[in-house]
């Protein structure tokens, strides 16, 4: 699990923020969310089964605890 080259949440803000205590600006965060959503499409398409209902049933268990 590499987390290289990323903003470390405990480090000081890199620039002016919409909220002075937030590490980065609202627009930067929004762009991060949009980037995640767009880039995740391929991952989701590769992972999803042809029949999700069947997949979920196949993985169903008696549950933990």
């Amino acid at each position: 699990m590499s987390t290289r080259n990323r903003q470390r949440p405990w480090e000081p803000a890199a620039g002016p923020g919409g909220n002075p205590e937030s590490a980065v600006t609202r627009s930067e965060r929004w762009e991060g969310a949009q980037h995640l959503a767009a880039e995740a499409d391929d991952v989701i398409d590769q992972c999803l089964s042809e029949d999700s209902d069947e997949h979920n049933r196949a993985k169903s268990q008696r549950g933990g605890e």
Partner: protein
Amino acid sequence: MRHGRLFGIETEYALSAFDPDGARVDGDWVGSQIVRLARTKRGAVPGLQSSGVFLANAGRLMTDIGEHLEACSPECTAPGEAVRYVLACDRLVRELADEVEASRPEVASIVLGRCNVDYAGSGTDTWACHENQLYRGEPEILAREIVPHFVSRLVYTGAGGFDSRSSGAPFLLSPRVAHLVAERSSSSTSHRGIFHSKNESLAGGDYRRLHVLCGETSCSRLATWLKLGTTALVVALVEAGLRPGSAVRLWSPLDAMRAFAGDPACRVEVALQDGRRMSAIAIQRHYLEEAERSLGSRFFPPWAEEVCKVWRSTLADLELGPDAVATKVDWAMKLTLFRRHAERRGFAWESIPHWTRAADQLADAVAASGFSPASITVEDALGRAVSPVPETIAQLRPFLAELGLDWRDLRKFLDLRHQLCEIDMRFGELGDAGIFERLDRAGLLDHDAPGVGDVAAAMDVPPARGRARLRGEAIRAIGRRSGARADWHGVWDKRRKRMLDLSDPFAELVTWQPWDGAGIRDDDRLSFFRNAGL
């Protein structure tokens, strides 16, 4: 060290195994094979009174009811260290499963999931992530002071998902909340409470163990780090005689938790006992300020300031809305994926609650009609021939029409629901196939946490302090001998007739004592190996 904190996490992994033809392989047997390999390949030691084995890193691995594996981290003294051992346990379990796949021709694939609820079973099945925090004091006082923290911390600890009891897809920041039914409870398998009152200290003296069962398994390192760090600080405040929860007592903790879990905007306010209303973020800010007031106190650990800093920053991000934490905490990552997937399938995210209402009312009506919901298709229920629930259809038709929705899209919505649930189940899969792992490898997430360190080394090396270090070092020394046993409170060496007393959780000195073999039977070894499939 005497004023330090000790905590750890128990993670339940959903386990599914399949043979080369795709047929299901018994999960209990597969789990026992994984535990067996921990013993033979990793030098783990059978438990003396506990089931499963104790690992060289001082944690524990076991199979539990419901075909699932459970790994317990060793006792840790800092949140970064605890995250390191949680990740080490994840990696160890996956590697052992890979070895079972490679060595057992009857097992083609083993899927291990860090999911919290099961969407295809009874709707009530869950997998837990229990936290443990060592403390001294009165449980009644701790419960009173910490419950508002448990209720409100889900804004950063929530795993995200859906209410698994629904026929639709009601998003929850913390899907486990749907399975909590009491403010306090002594049970972990039914009638679960926000505060678990079980008192099983697993240590000597006047120590107690806070066993938290309202939490969830997170993939985000930051979420796990904050979960443990903030809770440890609240416990420390209460232990020191302060009352951090007295100003934020909730009128109805369970209702408040449900309200917070259902509000991704984190804006909803709930009633306090004093008549005020506060949001989850405001309650968290209150606890944060209580902690900040005690920074520098002798009863606070050295990492308290760092926790407060990250805590404050995360709450500030949360106030900006879900997008601001979409790469940081699990529920917001999943919300981003769910929303996107729904839109790609032609459903506005805002329409999901309406479809959920329609699907739930339809399912309830079918069940009340005397038909088994499983025996009736959506098309049957909608009455292409003769619907068994015509009144419900007629009642809901104008509701949907007013929203611009059409019954004819219900089948499409239910297919979407199955896909969303599959995304949730696959999100936390261990190994390269997991969605979280893929997104993380692609550099799309931003969930790092301080002090995590060397995860690979932590698979076999115990923490540097406390009784976990002594347990792990003793297991590494005698683990491959027959007759070795371990537990949270000691290690037993039958061959040399000695035992290492670990009832002091902060023990630092190795003091083996003579032992006459009491507490261990000759047939223990046989029964262990039989249970482990050896």
